[in-house]
């Protein structure tokens, strides 16, 4: 087993009764990296993460987390891992601090309590408030704190920014990046491309229980279709631009033209230089568009 690998998954399969949630998942996450796990709802992200902690038992395949088989020794894995569930439920009749102290007790009091309070301040949560009085977003913040509070070697985060406002999403992503800076490996699932792109070094895309692609986020985005809207100061005929490789004209009126670009937009921008452009807007490709681009590639290969 390679010491540089934090998570190694080979041929992982999982059935829920007759339903196959994971087909054959193969994945490697290197130590110290932030690894994004992208996929639409029901693709198998949560099932994969829960297999890593032995919360559910795989039906086949091999898993090693920090070199340990979680099915054989789940406690040894959990000691070194911080986990944020996708559907976080906390004990409603306890305060935020009560929940954190209880979970810290399960960890043998390993948390750095000063760090807990600093995170609480950064995420703007009142730990004295009973959980039942907290909004979904504030409960999610408690979830983030409990995952990080013992400074784990590996963070398994299932949709960590779900329910958070943009400012807090940014703060949570900063906390994750800081953890990585201290040597923590981060494996996090998401269905939001922008947050994966913001912090992940590599990303795996999963669809219907199968890994479709493992790549750097920028590579995926560059291969996706994106829309580029060009506003002109005066009506000019720029339709010849649609003959550029990968560029398709979608619509146009007097001063606005909408292109669809496959891959990098560098060629289009250079070709626009002689035209009187007043504004240019690119629409970030959605997860669906990236998937679409990947499937188109697959079909071409077939």
């Amino acid at each position: 087993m390679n010491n540089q690998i934090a998570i190694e998954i080979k041929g992982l399969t999982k059935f829920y009764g007759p339903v196959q949630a994971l087909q054959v998942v193969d994945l490697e996450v290197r130590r110290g990296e932030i690894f994004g796990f992208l996929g639409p709802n029901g693709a198998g992200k949560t099932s994969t993460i829960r297999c890593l902690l032995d919360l559910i038992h795989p039906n086949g395949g091999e898993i090693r987390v920090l070199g340990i088989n979680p099915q054989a020794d789940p406690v040894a894995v959990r000691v070194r891992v911080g986990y944020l569930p996708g559907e976080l439920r906390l004990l409603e009749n306890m305060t935020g601090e009560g929940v954190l102290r209880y979970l810290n007790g399960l960890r043998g009091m390993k948390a750095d309590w000063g760090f807990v309070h600093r995170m609480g301040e950064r995420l703007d949560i009142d730990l004295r408030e009973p959980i039942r009085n907290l909004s979904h977003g504030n409960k999610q913040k408690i979830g983030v704190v409990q995952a990080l509070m013992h400074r784990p070697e590996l963070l398994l985060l299932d949709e960590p920014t779900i329910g958070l406002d943009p400012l807090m999403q940014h703060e949570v992503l900063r906390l994750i990046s800081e953890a990585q800076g201290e040597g923590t490996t981060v494996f996090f699932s998401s269905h939001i491309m922008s947050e994966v792109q913001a912090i992940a070094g590599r990303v795996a895309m999963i669809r219907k229980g199968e890994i479709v692609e493992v790549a750097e986020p920028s590579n995926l985005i560059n291969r996706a279709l994106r829309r580029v809207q060009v506003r002109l100061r005066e009506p000019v005929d720029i339709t010849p631009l649609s003959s550029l490789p990968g560029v398709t004209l979608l619509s146009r009126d007097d001063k606005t033209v909408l292109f669809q670009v496959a891959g990098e937009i560098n060629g289009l921008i250079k070709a626009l230089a002689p035209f009187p452009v007043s504004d240019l807007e690119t629409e970030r490709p959605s997860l669906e568009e990236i998937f679409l681009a990947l499937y188109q590639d697959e079909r071409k290969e077939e």
Partner: protein
Amino acid sequence: MLTVILHTMRRFRGQIIGWGIGLALYAAFLSSFYDTIAKQSEQFEKLLQNYPQEIFAFFGGTTNLVTPEGYLTLEFFSYMPIIIGIFAVLAGSGLLASDEENGTMDLVLAHPISRSGLFLGRLLALLVATMAILAVNWLGFLVAMNWSSLDIGLVEMARPFLSLFAILMLFGSLALFLSMVLPSRRSAAMISGVLMVASFFITSLARLDKSLEDIARLSPMNYYQSGEAIKVLNNDWFLGLLAAAGVFVLASWWLFQRRDIRVGGEGGWRLPSFTSRLRFGPFPKTRAT
């Protein structure tokens, strides 16, 4: 595991106080009322003779209100398995399943605690909570007896509570086992409750109809001694009930080891799989069907 025990005990705290103090006060009331019974024993005997025997069959089968064991059987211990059984069945069925249904177990089991550790911690907390309720109840009798002619020693008074503890453990562990097999905590509590009441009825009816005695031998309540244990505890029955509870506990533990932890809500009903993968063996290469 200590954290699990303490946390679970905190969850049981309200029930220990409620059940314990409530029943202790009732015990005190019964102890004081015994003096009245003892003073007017002849009138009560005559009164009871006019009652249909069917009634007494459901209250331990005794009509002797004057002896301490007869009085406590009729007025208290005969129906206590059903009363405190409500606690045992609800606590047993919810011991693990309620955390699964409200979705909190996912996070707890992601911490460095084994499934066996969590199971054992919860189970110990249930044992301690049940013992605490019975101990407060026992204490209630002992304190109240200072102002009553009901004169029973510490050990003698503890014996029926031991018998009660054993029957409660049996139905509590049955509820725990059913919560591992059935799709929801509610259904596990309901079925264990029905079985508990059915057992009470079969045992009671067997006192009236001898033809039911064979069936009653299969009824756990048949081995509950009620107030009769004040005289002598039937160790075979006591240990037999605990052994049966132990079987349900072991089966529950085995199922919990093999269980996929639910994220929340009620699950789907399925038979426990006896062909599931070996937990600590090599990775299976076969797929489930």
